[in-house]
């Protein structure tokens, strides 16, 4: 992959020295570089799309067809793969668990995160620097260091292997990212508005929820979308903290399905399960795609 890029890069150098009106040779070289660059992008697109497309096509094939040839099209649309994945493999149930846990955690994270970020951004108080440093620390340390004690903390409060326990863990681990991102956002909001609101007699609560939060909507939306993708894809926390199969979330369910498929060999249903897992996030992405790309842009500037 990178070798291809390098070759393009080497070609570009030869077109360098021309100024303004390119002599004919330079123009031809330029076109060659352009064609090579376009080729690189096409190859890259194929590399991205082919595995996903193959998964989609395979999800309509029977296991025999999948192993007969990786390229063959399904003889007929074997929609029973989806039914099997949804019911027999329990993907339907895991899907519902994922929706419940992610929704709960997302709402909590955004609420707690925005309140904390607001205070950290707007009110100087002793120890503010230390609090900020501790938030960044939570972003840097590997979660793996914390999972063992976390397991026992949840056990002690009786939330191990429960969905509320997962919501709590998801929220806590999405909190530092949310605060970190939103602090810089609240800092950029004009201070005069908040001051005007409090002079008009609005309480801190009202100032925050009715004045500041609506102003922060673009930043909130961006963080919410990134959090949604992150929480929906979360794997380690549920695997450690939630070993009750009835409470599995989608990622866990897919992992256990994949490890069982080795024995019962319903690969058609495995692919169907994969498609079922991808589609909701892909839809959210395609709908909010502009906003998400914008938020990535913001993240890169902060």
């Amino acid at each position, binding site marked *: 992959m990178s070798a291809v890029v390098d070759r393009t890069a080497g070609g570009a*150098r030869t077109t360098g020295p021309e100024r303004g009106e390119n002599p004919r040779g330079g123009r031809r070289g330029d076109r060659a570089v352009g064609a090579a660059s376009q080729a690189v992008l096409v190859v890259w697109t194929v590399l991205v799309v082919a595995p996903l497309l193959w998964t989609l096509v395979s999800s309509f094939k029977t296991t025999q067809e999948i192993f007969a040839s990786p390229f063959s099209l399904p003889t007929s649309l074997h929609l029973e793969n989806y039914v099997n994945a949804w019911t027999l493999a329990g993907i339907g149930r895991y899907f519902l668990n994922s929706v419940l846990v992610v929704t709960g955690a997302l709402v909590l994270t955004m609420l707690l995160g925005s309140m904390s970020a607001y205070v950290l951004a707007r009110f100087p108080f002793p120890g503010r620097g230390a609090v900020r440093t501790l938030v960044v620390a*939570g972003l840097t340390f590997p979660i793996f*260091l914390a999972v063992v*004690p976390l397991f026992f903390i949840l056990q002690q409060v009786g939330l191990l292997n429960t969905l509320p326990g997962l919501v709590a863990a998801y929220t806590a681990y999405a909190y530092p990212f949310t605060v970190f991102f939103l602090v810089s956002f609240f800092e950029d909001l004009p201070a005069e508005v908040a001051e005007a609101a409090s002079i008009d007699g609005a309480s801190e609560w009202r100032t925050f929820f009715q004045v500041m939060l609506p102003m922060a909507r673009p930043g909130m939306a961006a963080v919410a979308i990134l959090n949604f993708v992150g929480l929906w*894809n979360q794997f380690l926390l549920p695997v450690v903290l939630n070993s009750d199969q009835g409470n599995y979330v989608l990622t866990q369910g897919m992992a256990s399905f994949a490890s069982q498929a080795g024995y019962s060999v319903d690969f058609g249903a495995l692919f169907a399960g994969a498609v079922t897992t991808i589609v909701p996030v892909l839809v959210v992405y395609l709908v909010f795609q502009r906003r998400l790309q914008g938020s990535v842009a913001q993240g890169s500037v902060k």
Partner: protein
Amino acid sequence: MVVFLGLPFCFYVLMVLYPFTQATYYSLTAWTGFSPEQPFVGLGNYARLASDGQFRTALGNSLTLLVVVPAVVMVASFALACLLTFGGSTAGSVRGMRGTAFYRVVSFFPYVVPAIVIGIIWAQIYDPSGGLLNGVLTAVGLDRFTDFAWLGDVGTAMGATIAVIVWAFIGFYMVLFVAAIQGIDPELFEAARLDGAGRVRSALSIALPAIAGSVRTAYVYMGILALDAFVYMQALNPNGGPDSSTLVVTQQIFSTAFSQGQFGVACAMGVVLALVTLLFVGLVFAVFRLLGVRGGARG
């Protein structure tokens, strides 16, 4: 203010920061998790890790990932981002390749696919008999790849795994770099071109220094991800691969803690992993400072 910051922050301290310190303490004990005793053993667990061949293999593999994955992802995504932003025809104004918007949307797809599903899909692609990869290779006449087990061969398992992780992240960082490059004043590129700079020169002398802050942040994130890599490994080779060639520290922590019940040892491994992470982050920041990137996070 107590409600706004105090309560959420205490919750965060209890669930995230407190476990970190607790783990550090457990690493000095021979705790098995299910007995109330936590016999203090000092640095005994660490001494044991130092002589534990399995753990050293895992640590070595994790370090391989740490060195290779961020470097490959950064170079490839930066190159693609340059093509999309100013790699277009040199006639007329500076612009990217045609179809930039399309490439941006498509490149982002892997990022929204859950990592475990990416792993599952690629495990099928690498499948010796029914997989897409061997299907393509044999179709173009490379018959020696018939039934070749990419994930089952010591020589290829790690490379194949790295390819999956790289595949998963290039698009995300490409989009990030595209956004950062678009924040640069286009006149800089125009001026450079009038002075005779080609695309490579523009990329290295204008784009790269201008977005160095973003690259540094991205490098740190990618490194932390590469040190984890747990999901991908669990999906591709749950047992550490042929001859433990893809066994990583996180898998070792997981099995030591939750299959063998040696929580003290597992926590010691976690501390080692955290130290490696901190060392890596410090190193990246130091290198970028030497290269003259300003201290602030803003690029």
